[in-house]
């Protein structure tokens, strides 16, 4: 628009379109289209190289059936266990808002959710492996590898997330309900059934579905703790098909199946409503009753156990430090990778946050106009990299780009781009509830006040700042832990910290590996401290 006309338009109405107007919607649609293009290109890369063939014989292979069965079983159990165990912890936190170190605990929860898997696995092995610190307590037949180990790691990663989501659901119980409950002299069981359960119920199913999808697509954990061909998920099978055999028809067949199953599950759960994912606004006044002494003791016990379980795998890394000679340690060798990791995390974090914000504009527009189906479709598309096999994304693009682009030189940009693409769904899910809440309360007010784009952005920013910073921290952490994408596009010149850990461990240098692991974990904790603050907004 020419400047003159723009001025005229501005003076006419005091503003251009609203923030969810057509033009902004177009920007959002463009970003969404680019992200979809990326996925489409990666599939195209694989299909083109494999001449489009699918391996339908696979569908009749008993191995495939057992693989599918195991994928469902472990994902279902992981989700169920995470929720069941998270529930008492969330209750303890809800009923005792003044518990010591509660804020630290909630941060630790976030760290748990984003814990780089290779660090977690090292910690779990130190704790529960055959020579683990806790193993003597577990009896003769204990074996970490297999379904047991996978479940422990998945619960460790997802329980903290569930705790935050359930706590948030409880905090949404209005004060008036508790006043009424007190007035009506409801007993504990009645309160549980009539007040707590309805509040939890709406988030339980979407939460179950989300954790299920994450575990269904699980890769690193299953690869490391699966213990053999008995325990394999589709994503791992895709890796195995590609790695040695370069069997593209088999990989593609598996990829389509995974996309179909995880994708439809995810769509189903989007229809069922949205949980307030990772706890968008957790600061709430609440008048929940303070339980009596016996219940209080139980809650404290649960809380202490949760603390212990979340910290133990981290503490288990410490003895490794004692072995390492920190004086002789090659710090400069580790600082550059640490810096690159941080920069990559920041880049992917800001990129994903910006992309998520733009992608949400058309979604919000559709929600405001009550076009629910359209909104659901757009939401699904903007989170599609969550269900698309990550390996196909990177390997497909690698095949497509390798002959066309000097990947040895520009590969690091692809690492950044793909990491951004993979964490966008998490940013979308973090921002969405907060922004939709803004629209629900204030869209009309903002339009009635004829706020310009900048004024509206300023108001919106102050409303969603907490959610923005928290999701920035979260997606940064997820990107900082990446090894899968780096292993394909990265180069030795740009070694990241997680990759360095692999490098150390791969050359018998286990002590350096544990120092680097702790440094990575420390960096993650630092990022959380900076971005995940208690948010008093709203």
């Amino acid at each position, binding site marked *: 628009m020419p400047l003159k006309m723009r001025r005229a338009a501005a003076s006419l109405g005091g503003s251009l379109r609203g923030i969810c107007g057509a033009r902004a919607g177009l920007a959002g649609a463009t970003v969404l289209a680019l992200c979809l293009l990326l996925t489409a290109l990666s599939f195209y890369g694989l299909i083109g*190289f494999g001449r489009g063939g699918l391996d339908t014989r696979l569908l009749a292979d*008993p*191995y495939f059936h057992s693989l599918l069965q195991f994928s469902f079983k472990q994902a279902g159990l992981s989700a169920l266990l995470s929720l069941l165990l998270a529930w008492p912890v969330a209750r303890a936190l809800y009923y005792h808002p003044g518990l010591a170190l509660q804020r630290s605990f909630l941060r630790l929860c976030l760290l748990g959710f984003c814990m780089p898997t290779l660090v977690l696995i090292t910690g779990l*092995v*130190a704790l529960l*492996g*055959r*020579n683990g610190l806790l193993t003597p307590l577990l009896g003769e037949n204990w*074996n*970490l*590898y*297999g379904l047991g180990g996978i479940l422990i790691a998945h619960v460790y990663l997802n329980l903290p997330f569930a705790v935050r989501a359930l706590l948030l659901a409880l905090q949404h119980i209005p004060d008036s309900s508790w006043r009424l409950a007190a007035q009506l002299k409801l007993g504990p069981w009645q309160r549980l059934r009539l007040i707590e359960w309805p509040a939890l119920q709406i988030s339980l199913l979407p939460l179950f579905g989300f954790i299920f999808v994450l575990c269904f697509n699980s890769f690193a954990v299953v*690869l*490391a*703790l*699966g*213990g*053999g*061909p*008995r325990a394999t998920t589709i994503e791992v099978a895709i*890796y*195995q*098909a590609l*790695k*040695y*055999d*370069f069997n593209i028809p088999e990989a593609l067949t598996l990829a389509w199946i995974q996309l179909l199953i995880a994708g439809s599950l995810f769509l189903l759960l989007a229809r069922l409503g949205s949980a307030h994912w990772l706890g968008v606004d957790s600061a709430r006044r609440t008048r929940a009753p303070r339980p009596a002494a016996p219940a209080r003791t139980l809650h404290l016990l649960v809380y202490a156990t949760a603390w212990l379980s979340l910290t133990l795998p981290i503490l288990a890394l410490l003895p490794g430090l004692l072995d390492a000679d920190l004086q002789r340690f090659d710090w400069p*060798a580790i600082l550059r990778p640490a810096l690159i990791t941080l*920069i990559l995390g*920041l*880049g992917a974090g*800001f*990129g994903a*946050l*910006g992309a998520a*914000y*733009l992608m949400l504009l058309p979604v919000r527009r559709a929600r405001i106009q009550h076009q629910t189906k359209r909104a659901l479709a757009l939401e699904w598309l903007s989170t599609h990299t969550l269900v698309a096999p990550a390996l196909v994304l990177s390997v497909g693009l*690698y*095949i497509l780009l*390798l*002959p066309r682009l000097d990947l*040895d*030189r*520009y590969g690091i*940009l692809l690492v*950044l781009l793909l990491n951004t693409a993979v964490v966008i769904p998490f940013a979308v899910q973090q921002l969405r509830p907060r922004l939709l809440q803004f629209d629900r309360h204030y869209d009309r007010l903002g339009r009635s006040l004829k706020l310009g784009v900048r004024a509206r952005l300023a108001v919106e920013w102050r409303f969603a700042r907490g959610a923005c910073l928290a999701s920035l921290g979260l997606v940064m952490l997820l990107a900082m832990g990446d090894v899968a994408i780096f*292993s*394909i596009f990265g*180069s*030795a*010149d740009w070694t990241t910290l997680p990759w360095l850990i*692999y*490098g150390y*461990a*791969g*050359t*018998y*240098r*286990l002590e350096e*590996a544990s120092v680097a692991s702790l440094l990575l974990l420390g960096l993650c904790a630092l990022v959380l401290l900076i971005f995940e603050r208690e948010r008093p907004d709203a």
Partner: protein
Amino acid sequence: MKTPLSFCTGLALGTLALSAAAESADLRVYTYDSFVSEWGPGPQIESAFEAQCDCDLEFIAVEDGVSILNRLRIEREGNKADVILGIDDALIEETRATSLIAPHALDLSGLKAELNWHDSDFVPFDYGYFAFIYDSTRVGQPVDSLRALIESDASVIYQDPRTSTPGQGLMLWVKSVYGDDAAAAWTRLASHTVTVTKGWWEAYSLFLEGDADYVLSYSTSPAYHQVAEGKNQYRAAAFSEGHVAQIEVGAITRNAQDPELARRFLQFLISAEAQAIIPVTNWMLPVVDDVELPDAFDSLIRPERIGFTPQQVEQSRRDWLREWRSAASR
């Protein structure tokens, strides 16, 4: 959202500027990551060769040996390599089938006789025998054959044959010892397998943490512990049936810019100078005799070599993988 955008642009430009500094080299070698790592043979090989060729050598590293082949398959004639380094003998036929490899035309008569090497395209630069490693402070009476190991109840960690070369080696080993009874042997082994890992280091680090009695590795692994750590307790179990070898090879590509330079590099790799570097950095055996090595190498087991030819491996590998996959998941 101006800040993140300009931030990303800045990052992108910075990356471009930095990487543009790297000039194209005279000799480009595709190899695997651990070869070029700070503690691998790469840095020493590079400076030693550059000192005598007056040229610029550049290693381009991918994740592992099979990734080199996969990369060639994707890039086809567009590949940037003059030399590939780090494919093993089991992948030779598939690599040859890409028609991207040129004959080396080198005289290989100086190689160790036990290698029995007559290939006109591929030049071996190191080798090792697959072996099960144990901690002698924990296992007093080690097993003396593959059959004894599989029939025992000792805890074992090995690698997935679909994703790692040692895993693939064990597959060949079991196949050559058991033949048609291999499936039953896999199922028996699965009953006392702690875990099957994706790659070598996952298995080996678990073993070092004390997670198993035996781990599948190389006959040369004990040398590392002696030389680098001064530890003597790790030993390779010698098996009476013989051991399967892994021979790592290099080759010249058809589209090499300077085939003569590429030949000189391969020649250099089997020279006494390079052969003295490789064993103590890659922890494998030298392919020529009379290389001066640390004493630790003298105490290594000297197994009899068994196994299959690359052609046999290429023909049957997929069937054997399927056999393992269903037998071990039972």
